[in-house]
């Protein structure tokens, strides 16, 4: 149990540091949100009044800790652009879209790239290997938003398979959700699938060179048995960590893809808020995205630990 507690502590420390970092980043802006809202013509009195209203007149530490507490209570201040609307309300409405998009993308990545990687590594130089390799290279060479534009153009406009920009919660209507989210998720997943297949392939190939595979062969295992019973679990261990790292990339991808498909998620809000200089919103979104990434990575570490018997106390 010791290990999990240690991991939890380290998770909380990282969380704190990430919050601090997200907060401090926005302290380097010349002026502050109050000034950017009122414009340069505002009188000093007006600015002072607004500053007091937003709480900018307190010192940095006080503001950080009230903001940090707000992460848990949901009170992260008021949006500058959308007037009295709270940042948490703005984000709360959009968070599910981004999370479901991310979940669907990761499912696509896992379901497609792991079997594909295994097949490719089993027959290196085979047709599947060569073709998938070239396709992967191509997907990695095109920016993800271009892939998104093409997918939305071909499947949304030419074939009319879905309506770009529409979002339905999976809890209200699952088939409808799949219909409107499948293609955006595919657009997020494609470049990462390409990366994961390559990684999986290398991982399996490395495992295949290990001595225990030779032992398995000497025991009379068939190629399939070696693959599924011996190599899969061993080669999955690094891949699990890799997928943990991919989560950050998926979040980055969804920022782009939400803009391409006009999906009402956090990414779109972020991009708009950046152009609007709505810093409280930007700050909160940056924080939440990082939070998702470290939480998933924390879970991945735990899963790794459960899967690999060799992990000792020193693996922290």
């Amino acid at each position: 149990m010791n290990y999990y507690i240690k991991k939890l502590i380290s998770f909380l420390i990282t969380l704190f540091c990430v919050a601090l970092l997200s907060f401090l980043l926005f302290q380097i802006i010349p002026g502050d949100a109050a000034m950017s809202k009122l414009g340069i013509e505002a009188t000093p009195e007006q600015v002072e009044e607004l500053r007091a209203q937003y709480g900018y007149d307190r010192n940095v530490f006080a503001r950080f800790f009230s903001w940090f507490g707000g992460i848990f209570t949901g009170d992260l201040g008021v949006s500058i652009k959308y007037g009295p609307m709270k940042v948490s309300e703005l984000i709360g409405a959009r968070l599910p879209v981004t999370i479901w998009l991310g979940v669907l993308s990761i499912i696509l990545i896992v379901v497609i790239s792991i079997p594909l990687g295994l097949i490719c590594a089993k027959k290196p130089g085979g047709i599947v290997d060569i073709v998938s390799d070239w396709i992967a290279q191509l997907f990695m060479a095109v920016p993800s938003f271009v892939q998104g534009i093409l997918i939305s153009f071909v499947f949304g406009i030419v074939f009319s398979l879905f309506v770009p920009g529409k979002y339905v919660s999976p809890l209200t209507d699952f088939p409808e959700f799949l219909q409107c989210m499948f293609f955006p998720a595919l657009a997020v997943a494609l470049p990462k699938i390409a990366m994961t297949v390559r990684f999986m392939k290398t991982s399996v190939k490395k495992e295949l060179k290990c001595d225990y595979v030779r032992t398995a062969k000497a025991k009379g295992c068939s190629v399939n048995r070696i693959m599924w019973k011996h190599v899969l679990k061993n080669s999955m261990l690094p891949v699990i960590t890799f997928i943990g790292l991919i989560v950050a990339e998926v979040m980055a991808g969804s920022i782009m893809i939400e803009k391409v498909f006009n999906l009402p998620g956090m990414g779109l809000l972020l991009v708009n808020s950046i152009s609007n200089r709505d810093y409280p919103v930007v700050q909160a979104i940056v924080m939440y995205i990082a939070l998702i990434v470290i939480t998933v990575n924390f879970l991945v570490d735990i899963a790794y630990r459960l899967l690999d018997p060799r992990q000792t106390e020193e693996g922290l």
Partner: protein
Amino acid sequence: MNKELKYNNKNIRLIVGLILLGFATLPVIFTVFVQFYDPNEVNYSEMLKHPTFKHLFGTDDYGRDIFTRVMKGAATTFGISLFTVTMGAVIGTVIGALTGYFGGIVDEILMRVNDCLASFPSILLALVVVSLIDKGTWNICIALGLVFIPSFARIMRSEYLKEKNRDYVQNARLMGAGHLRVVFIHILPNTLPILFSAILVGINNAVLAEAGLSYLGLGVQPPDPSLGRMLSEAKTFLLNAPWYELFPCLEMILFILGLTLVSDNFGVSGVSLNAVKRKIEKLRAEKEAEDANDKNNAGTINNTGAADIEKKDIKASEPVPMISVRNLEVGFIEDDGIDDTLLGISFDIHKGEVLGVVGESGSGKSLTAMSIMGILSEKAAITGGSIILDGKTDLTKLSEEEYRKLRGGRLAYVFQEPMTSLNPVQKIGVQIDEILDIHAAHLSEDEQKKLVLDALEDTGLKDADKLYDMYPFELSGGMRQRVCIAMALIAKADLILADEPTTALDAGVADIILDIFKHINRKYKTAIMLISHDLRVIGKLADRVLIMQDGNIVETMELKSDTAHTESEGSTDKHHKKGTELSEEDCILRFGTPKTDYGKKLLAAAFSTKQYRQKGTGKTLVKAEHLSVSYKMASKKQKGLKKVIDDVSFEIKEGITAGIVGESGSGKSTLVKAIAGLQRYIEGKLELGCDRPCMVFQDPYSSLNPAFKVRRILEEPLRLKNGFGYSWKKKNRERMLTEIKSMLHKTELDEEILGRKISELSGGQRQRIAIALTLIQKKSLIILDEPVSALDVTIQEQILDLLMKLKKAFGLTYILISHDMRLVSRVCDEVFVIEDGKIRSE
């Protein structure tokens, strides 16, 4: 056939990659000098024109020439990428190198910050930075550059962590190189391949990131073009002007694809195995056709090897051998063809016998066993001959499915490395049970489990029940090797191929393992093919020995029976005693006299008793009083110091060879590192009557810098000495060269190796260079850390001879570390045994 194979996958990728890169970059460079249109010139009469000769790529919605804009945009995009990656790589490398090498609190803090930064997706970080410092070309450069620093720092840090513990780093420190010199001159060249491929990947990512930022309106500002801007501007015209999107996209694909293909070239070689396999099949078919022809003619002319042996077999009128190998040829697939390694060997294995196979590394012993088992690696293939089982089945012609049934059933294999031969994430019981799952699926689970436990107990393992549910990492090397033997036992194999089964184990454990083999051989009449480089191992067990050299069997010897042999059925305990009791003299007697020169040489080297002892002059060179040495625990769980050497006192006199022996982990390396000045945590008194000593390490491959050529390696101590002046002056380098050449002669090396790298030399040559390196430093005390144990027997003797000759010539004093008592007793004048941190003189 060599020519055909030379154009392998790897080269094709490099060539295609370079061609793509050329297509992507040459027009860009051209456009920098010659522009037919102004990229920003608006011309409403030419709006959205499709590609023509006038406008190669057509025009955009403002009537601007897309070709010029693509090239101008590509120049901007590539420029930004190059700048950001260079910035990230330079700063990241310095941070990563210093933190990785020095460690400590700065490293801890930086790595925490790095972990936090890694939680922000890189594009997000860039977005935020750009939004904070405003848009524009220079600002993206800085934003992306900052984003790249952590990833380079991380990569370089892990490289430095890996490299800093290598022997060559310690060697450089011993020569007197400062920390910064070690970091940037010795280690950096070894990390360059990784750094280089990270840079190429980084450029790709930077191009994509620039595109992303521009798409979000935060990158290059209009009207200036960049590839990203164009891609996002064109999206509204997909239907009526698809070329607008197509050409910038194509330019980007060409560039990234080209770069990826080129960077792949620095990875692992991708020889097309399929092509080679087809080739081998063709070769075999040809050879068989030839053989068949010969056989038809054999009625009159009886000169083929196969016919000869057939005749012999009949004459001997022995029972049919279990395995008979005839003219077996095996080759390795190289980049440029097939390198024949086994050159047509023939031998038999009879039921119940122990056949020893001995030879130096590269003689083809393991290859022979793997060919019988049918588990040659993908890069090796049988190119001729046959392996007949029971006088009926030719194993080389067996289908994979039929062969599979033999493996683990009638044939079993015990590998050299018990530490890695077991699946690390499967329980021991499951791994042994698997054989029954495959070969005796009709048994119930309980029956299977009982058989597994029996097999484990048969190898002398206690608590088989408990072991069943344990993982390999919880077992010692000796226990794992027994588990491997249990695997061979469980299916009641007729033949166990034991490939150096004791080499990786400590001496005591090795003897026990040999006895288990002997016990199995007696009890179940299992034939064993025992492969070893060590004649003493063979002598303890074998009935017959094949001596192999360079892919041939040079001699077959019948061993005389020993006393333990006459006892046929006995308990395990008794055999345990017998095996270890068989003395060296008995061993030699069993071998008799070899007929061939090579056999004689091998036997002489293995049982050499040549003495090198010498008297010291009396002056004390090393004096330790109440010396304790600790090292810092590396694990995060156990912090603090651990005492490895505990309050020892000893003296080493000038001119002698002092031996330090002890089991692995006893602290002998820690002690000599303290003498060499490489240990930080020392208590007590340690006096040296000379300069800091230099060292010859066990593995010359890791103690000599793999990134340097031999000449550069040998120059290093001279460069550090300052007596030779600046090394960039030609005159000074020539002076160094004369010095180096004279040392090469003394270590009996050829001058031509100066231009080679360590990886291109043999083990013996490498160790000679390591010795030459110590001579150049002109130190009087030299520490030899297992100097010969990684070498072949005959080479061992040559190196020993050389070392002793040099000792006499230069009046050196040696401190020799070894686990080999035999070696120590032949060479050393004084021996210190280390046990549990204490020292005792013998």
